[in-house]
């Protein structure tokens, strides 16, 4: 699935929340309203307002070729 402009915007939002305290404060006070004002798609605004984090992550990951779920080591020192 190709990455869309909406996906890019959602990624931007998720990253900026970590660096922009003002945006984070607004999000915490009104997640849906803040997401809408940021320019996210109606579908993404709905997910954020409902706190549907599994769906948000699935949405973010849908376009990726592969992602690392975890890394396991079972090796001995050799």
């Amino acid at each position: 699935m190709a990455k869309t402009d909406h996906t890019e915007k959602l990624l931007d939002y998720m990253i900026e929340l970590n660096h922009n305290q003002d945006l984070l404060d607004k999000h915490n006070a009104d997640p849906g309203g803040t997401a809408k004002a940021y320019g996210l798609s109606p579908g993404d605004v709905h997910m954020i307002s409902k706190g549907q984090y599994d769906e948000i992550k699935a949405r973010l990951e849908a376009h990726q070729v592969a992602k690392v779920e975890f890394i396991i080591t079972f090796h001995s020192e050799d």
Partner: protein
Amino acid sequence: MSQSKKGSFIAVGTGINVASHITASAQKHIQNADIVFAAQSCSVGMRLIQSLNANVFNLGELYEEGKSRVLTYRQMVEHIVKAVQEGKRVCGAFYGHPGVFVYAAHRAIKQLQQQGFTASMVPGISAEDCVMADLGFDPGNNGLQAIEVTQFLFFKHSINPHHLLIIWQFGLTGDFNFDTLETEKYSDGLAILRDELLAYYPCDHEVILYEAPTLIIEQPRIERMKLNDIEHCKPTVISTLVIPSIGMPEYDHKVMAKFGINAKQLEHNLDGLLED
């Protein structure tokens, strides 16, 4: 041995909630690299790394369903080592801590150092650090043991139930093919895990299924249950089983006497800092 060969490797950790946890040091190394080999658990992490450096190879592309993860990890090492041998300044950006459950980072560093290249690692925030922060545990209180679930089950390890115990990746209990990420396949293994843990803990001992959040707006997944009930929980590939201590063990009076101190004096000196 002189390590003056052109080409170098630095392994950095980007943390669990990458956008929040990435350190200034990791960012600097990513930015300064000729090429970044990135192993990330989510798009946000990959996106952040791509914003810091235009030349990023996604190590996740080496994974395939049904392909042994052991082979995948070896391929990761080959990619990293080859780039360094070509004279490049290489950075490996691994989510979490680059030295925790990261075969490729350790192996690449070892091989490259043996070949005379500069290769090293800087720490990052691991899921274990998130356990301490989100669940309020302090390993200084009772000590800490941490082990991956299949290692615990398939090797004759011993558990000290007086320690805080962290069992990693218990959603994949009993995985010995290393070729799938589907946790539903391993649900029968949870009953076996429970039976093994009952040798150390009472059946009603509280245990915790924990998942660290990867987005800043997300809350950690924290599900408390009795040990007897873990076969009914639904772990994912990122789930951790956290088992609190059963309490402090008895004092070792013989050893304390060698230091000229007894339990009463120690407790007085610590003034209530020792907790169960």
